[in-house]
């Protein structure tokens, strides 16, 4: 069976790639498009390290087939900073020391961005439940939640 030829938009850029049916979007991003910011922690949708948005919807890229991406708009961690400017979430993750080893960080940032786009004024509980699919083993979540809450305040003030 020939590979699928897929055209999609990744971080605003038109891309095309070939993939086997069984290759996931995460495989394609990492191995074919060399966007290794999305991480594979479990390959079963339980850790969130591979979080991306697909047409604006937060998903685990390990649970999407590469061939499902045709004609879709994908945003990854690599597209989060604009030019020289970090996204406010990225900046506050640094300021709050909201990362230790950093392996889960891209997934948390992509997920938190999706949260704040829908819920600009989340409660701590909303932040915690929204991010429950992103595992972090280093921080105990405290500084991550603080960074997200603080970013929400700052972004509301504009």
């Amino acid at each position, binding site marked *: *069976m020939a590979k*699928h030829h897929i055209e999609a938009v990744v971080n605003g850029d038109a891309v095309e790639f070939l993939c*086997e*049916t*069984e290759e*996931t979007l995460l495989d394609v991003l990492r191995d074919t498009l060399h966007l290794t910011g999305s991480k594979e922690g479990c*390959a*079963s*949708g*339980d850790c*969130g390290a591979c*979080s991306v948005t*697909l047409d604006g*919807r*937060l*998903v*685990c890229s*390990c*649970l*999407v*087939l590469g*061939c*499902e991406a045709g004609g879709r708009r994908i945003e990854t961690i690599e597209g989060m900073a604009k030019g020289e400017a970090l996204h406010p979430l990225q900046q506050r993750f640094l300021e709050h020391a909201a990362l230790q080893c950093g392996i889960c960080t891209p997934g948390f940032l992509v*997920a938190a961005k*999706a*949260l704040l786009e829908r819920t600009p004024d989340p409660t701590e509980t909303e932040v915690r*439940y*929204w*991010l*429950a*699919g*992103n595992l972090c083993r280093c921080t105990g979540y405290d500084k991550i939640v603080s960074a997200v809450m603080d970013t929400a305040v700052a972004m509301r003030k504009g």
Partner: protein
Amino acid sequence: MRYEAPESLEGAVALLAGAPGDARVLAGGTDLLVQMRADIVDPELIVDIKKIAETRTVTEEKGAWRIGAAVTGAELKEHLRLKKVWPGVVEAANLIGSTQVQGRATLGGNLCNGSPAADSVPALIAAGAVATVAGPQGKRDIPVEDVMLGPRKLALRKGEIVVSFLLPPRAKSSGDAYLRFIPRTEMDIAVVGAGVSLTIDGGGTITAARVSLGAVAARVLLVPEAAQAIIGSRLDEAAQQRLEAAARAACRPIDDKRGTTEFRIDIAGVLARRAASIALDRARTS
């Protein structure tokens, strides 16, 4: 491994019916992809049904609601009118996995994965939902409680696809609720799940009810005895105790890594009662 994404039901049915080897329907993929990765399934053909319009829409039909089998949990959550009428069904769908999984997981997939612990299934059964199935012989309707026969075993014939679910018109003063027990707050498979849908009269007496339990037997159970235990009551203490006892009596669970037999039976009673209480509150304020 072939991948097809037909735009018509007929196309999908033809592909599935004509597949020489194992063929799988891909809706949200949150179970299928995991099983492929774990070498549990190795299909020859994958039929993605998300391009078929009927699987992707939520429509009101004379007071009834039809939900496409490939509508995601996240989309259901954003459907405010549906959520108002069937909060328990929407909540149950929203308990499947994380926010990320919600972006993909569907009611059709949750049912057809064939797990007795599927979160949305007890809620659908309690709601009296009917699955509309399309196949080589055309369409047919199956009550949701009859779709699953046992773990990974469905009453679907080769080539058949669950297209949508029909939630019946809602009597006034009705409410539904779904609760599940997990050790954590998120991300676990239900150790026990309980769905309750009920209707009350002007005096607050329960006139109709359906109770469904998940993860306590080889398939999700509809428990008429549990419903009978509260019909005619105002969910007073005695009715609550009858409900708990009836729910527990229906359980035929297994011991596994997620919970013991004894624990599951205990919890089934607790959750049935708590879900009934929430459903009752909703009926009162609906």
